């Protein structure tokens, strides 16, 4: 994380920024496992821990894109493993709707990634992360798709939030 922040992110030297929502009970523990096992993976992800993947309002993901995330990842428990019994089903339903909605507003649906990673799948977490960073490089900066400068909030005459506030 600190390594990523130290990297100057200008238009010349673009580094993908991955916004990752992790469910507290499975995926976050998986990420934790990858960390304690000292696995090496791409440092581009910013992880936000949520109590359940069912907590995610689709608009959080849209907000992530507008704030300059090149890929938004949603990681939750496997079906049947949800700590709250059916939170990940709700998440799955929302992600399916969102996948249909994103192209309608001109955002590539490939930029949304939804997967299930359990607490014991640290290796899978590492592999997913590397795969996503590779994909982000292929897709290019989201600024090309949205009307905004690289890694910045969309230019707005009176908008208060700037890129420094967000990242």
């Amino acid at each position, binding site marked *: 994380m600190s390594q990523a922040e130290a990297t100057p992110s200008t238009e010349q030297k673009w580094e993908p920024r991955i916004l990752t929502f992790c469910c507290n009970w499975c995926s976050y523990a998986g990420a934790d496992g990858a960390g304690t096992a000292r696995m090496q993976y791409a440092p581009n992800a910013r992880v936000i821990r949520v109590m359940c993947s069912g907590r995610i309002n*689709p*608009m959080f993901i*849209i*907000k992530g894109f*507008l704030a300059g995330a090149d890929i938004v990842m949603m990681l939750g428990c496997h*079906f049947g493993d949800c700590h709250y019994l*059916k939170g990940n*089903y*709700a998440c*799955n*339903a*929302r992600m*399916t*709707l969102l*996948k*249909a*909605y994103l*192209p*309608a*507003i*001109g*955002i590539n649906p490939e930029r949304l990634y939804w997967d299930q990673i359990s607490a014991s799948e640290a290796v899978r977490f590492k592999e997913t992360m590397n795969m996503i960073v590779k994909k982000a490089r292929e897709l290019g900066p989201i600024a090309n*798709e*949205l*009307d905004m400068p690289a890694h910045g909030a*969309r230019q*707005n*005459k*009176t*908008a*208060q*939030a700037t890129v420094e506030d967000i990242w």
Partner: protein
Amino acid sequence: MFYGKATDQATLERGECGGAVTAILTSALEQNLVDGALVIKKGESIYDGFPFFATTKEEIAEASGSLHCAPTLSAKVIKNYLNGARDTRIAVTCKPCDARAIIEMAKRNQINLDNVYMVGVNCAGTMPPVPAREMIRQFYEIDPDDVVKEEIAKGKLIVQTKDGEHKEVSVDTLEKAGYGRRKNCQRCEFNIPRMADVACGNWGVIGPDAGKATFIEVRTDKGQKLLDTATSSGALTLTNALPEGVALREKLDGIMIKMARKFKAAQFAKFDGDDKFKKLFAELDRCILCRNCIINCPICYCEECFTKKDYVMPQGALPPEPMFHLTRLMHIGPSCVDCGQCEDGCPAEIPIATITHMVQTDVEKALGYVPGRSMEDPFPLSYWLEVQE
């Protein structure tokens, strides 16, 4: 499917084609099936149609006849002023978009559908009142106030003046000049209100009754009840529809749908391409955050609006953050019935209805959910949750 005719002579004359809708509403009120009827009433002139809750026979009679310059939406009226039909039984005359909006609102528990009897009427489009006056002056070369009746038939807009003179201009000509039907009506693929309880209209009436009877199709049990009430009280006479008439009605519907698809493609083409987001916001950035689109939308119903939260978008910034529009599109996009109320209310003249309908079309292509078609179509989110469990 039947041809219906009112038995009452006055209703026959006042009504559009046989006065069947007026007869159905009147008998439903008289037989205490409903407490009142939500109808569109003529105001000062034929360019002035407004929703009106009629509770007596005379009031219903006053509202008979069709109006094309009434870009109204009955669904939101039921919710805002009739308490969502929770304690009143209402018969409502609806265009297909009204009926679809009522069904979508019923799915969201905003309207109690058990108390609503939907009397659908065919609609080939409505016109904005003020440009319509201008159009009459320019294309028909008559004083707009002299017009006593207008009718859309066979692709032509026919007006009748006080002196009994008929003048017609093709709708295509009018629309090429920027007049004619509203943009959303041009795109509309729902001309026959098959989602209502009874679908009435003048399409498909042939033979001796042509122009003098109303085509009635019963769609639900409630519709059958309405029709039974009207026939048993002797207000309405029915004859079976001719099979050729039924085929003609289908054919006309097909022609209108084809035309609508052409308009749809032409209007959406403006936003197509790789930089769709930029193209959308080139229009949406004119927004002055008056929230008229939210107030008028039949699908928007939250008591506490998501876009009024500080963490969603900075409040008071103009033009609003893209989150405002994207939230609106996400919340109502999959269910947009393309009633055009948002676009009518927009002071910045943003083509919001076009954009929302475009999102709806895309989502429909991906998920197959047709908004407002039937109460049996479950909303995708809740349906998936049930299926997965």
